[in-house]
């Protein structure tokens, strides 16, 4: 350590030029800052861990236990729940067979989720386009009209659909009143009802991200395309669609994931017969009294959702790399 070359050397300065001290102080400040940040995050971390994320691990543990006779579990290891997800023991000859009921529900869940995604695409993309091409003042109003249902109670929106399509609902009453039919058309408790309901409740989830990407669209590019004698169809397929694709992918994922895990809409509109995965899981904790199977099914559903999410991250990540 050397004294400053010129000027006085009051007590305060003697250590000032020591590079180690400065570095130590800086390190100390940074560490204290990070400690404060962790402390501030602690309540949120604790609550989410205790009442959302942490219990998921218990679900995993329960999926490997033996079902108790009146629900709950016995603490004995058993892989049966996981086998039961796809296979079942024949009650007469004890041979393993495909669990047709489960597989049908898996298939129905996937089918209805894809169908819902497709329907929201058909309705949502033109709607998003329509909103994005309004002038600025009216655009806010249209956007607000899409957002309101998004934040209103999902159960109430499902009930609204139900009142429309019930046997004694508005549509059937009107048709009978007009003398067009004599017996009400059975729409409730069908796959159609579930797809219609899910399309209705998840539609805003498609419109909003697609709108966001159309809004960013540079319409000069579109004009340039027309300038080069592209037809409308070619224009849409070659220029607009690729540019809007990120929003369409985001919207599709946002619709597909809650559809796959839907519980309220199939329960209200599908009734007891047309189950989806969410209802099958619930059944194991209610009448089924097979908590381990319910746990295994829940983890299976979560894994399916994670696959969809990872696919999304993969696609958007690649897109980001392309655009620099």
């Amino acid at each position, binding site marked *: 350590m050397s004294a400053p070359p010129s000027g006085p050397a009051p007590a305060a300065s003697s250590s000032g030029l020591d590079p180690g001290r400065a570095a130590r102080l800086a390190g100390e400040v940074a560490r204290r*800052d990070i400690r404060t*940040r*962790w402390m*501030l*995050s602690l*309540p*949120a*971390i604790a*609550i*989410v861990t*205790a*009442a*959302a994320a*942490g*219990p*998921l691990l*218990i*679900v995993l543990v329960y999926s490997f236990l033996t079902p108790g006779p009146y629900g*709950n579990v016995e603490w004995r290891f058993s892989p049966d729940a996981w086998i039961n997800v796809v296979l079942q023991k024949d009650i007469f000859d004890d041979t393993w067979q495909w669990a047709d009921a489960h597989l049908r529900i898996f298939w129905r869940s996937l089918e209805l989720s894809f169908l819902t995604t497709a329907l929201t695409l*058909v309705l949502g993309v*033109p*709607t998003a386009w*329509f909103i994005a*091409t309004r002038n600025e003042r009216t655009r806010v109003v249209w956007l607000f*009209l899409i957002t309101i249902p998004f*934040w*209103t*109670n*999902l*159960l*109430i*929106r499902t*009930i*609204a659909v139900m*009142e*429309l399509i*019930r046997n004694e*609902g*508005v549509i059937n*009453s009107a048709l009978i009143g007009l003398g067009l039919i004599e017996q009400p058309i059975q729409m409730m408790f069908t796959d159609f009802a579930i797809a219609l309901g899910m399309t*209705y409740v998840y*539609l805003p989830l498609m419109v909003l991200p697609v709108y966001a990407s159309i809004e960013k669209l540079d319409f000069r590019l*579109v004009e340039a395309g*027309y300038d080069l004698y592209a037809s*409308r169809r070619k224009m849409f397929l070659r220029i607009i669609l690729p540019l809007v694709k990120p929003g369409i992918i985001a919207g599709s994922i946002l619709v597909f*994931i809650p559809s796959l*895990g839907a*519980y309220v809409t199939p*329960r*209200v509109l599908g009734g007891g017969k047309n189950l989806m995965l*969410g209802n099958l*899981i*619930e059944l194991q*904790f209610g009448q089924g009294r097979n*908590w381990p199977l319910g746990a295994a099914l*829940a*983890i299976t*559903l*979560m894994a399916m*959702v994670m696959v969809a999410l990872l696919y999304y991250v993969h696609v958007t990540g690649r897109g980001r790399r392309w655009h620099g």
Partner: protein
Amino acid sequence: MSGWRNRGQPFSSRRIPGFAGIALATFALLYAPIAILVIYSFNAGLSIAIWEGFSLKWYVQAWNNEAVQEATLRSLGVASVAATVATLAATMAALATTRTRPFRGMTAIYTLINQPLMVPEIVTAVALLIFFAIIKVATGYTGIVYLVAAHTAFCIPFAYLPIRARLESMDLSLERAAADLYATPWMTFRRVTLPLLWPGIMAGFMLAFVISLDDVVITEFVKSAGQETLPTYMLGQIRRVMTPEVNAISTALLLAGVVFVTLFFALSRKR
């Protein structure tokens, strides 16, 4: 070229034939069921489909229904506590995870806080059912705290989003200026950061409140006997004969939701 012109409308690159029609039909489809639901809440008759004249009797009936009263108070109570605690925790977490160089664990905090958004509700509901069953057996306590804790947890990411957005758009040099003018870190927070963050905090609270008020799935699995909230009460009712009473309750709940969401938007846009 002439093909575009002879449609009688000036050419616009922003117009795609058919899109406006689908869009307007979509808006109609979106609002028709809600409109019908609201209209029949004023039906004098028993039916949810045959109009028998205007009446407020179903509102009166719902108002006087003790089960509805109880569920409403419980819903409001749970939403108030859960939204308040969630907003507080989310504000602190947002302050910790914004405007800093990424530090070890920051992504983990961020992912954890947003975790309830990524897992299907039914899975969280089942997880909480199992977890709380264990605690209920161990402690013998079956009170409302479980419901409040669950609601607080899934409200946190919703409260966190607008608060974080506002913090990120806030000019860092304002806090620097306060420190430069002799404000200690605490005074800087109280006099500059907090007043500027306040609309974001309120927006976060509104969102959390609405989300809590609307929840069905997790509540249905977590609630102990006799702990109905308004949505679970309604879910139970629609299995039976539907009367416009459900419509009346729905309409009231819709109105509350619209008010909160409108406030949320007003606050988010405030400079």
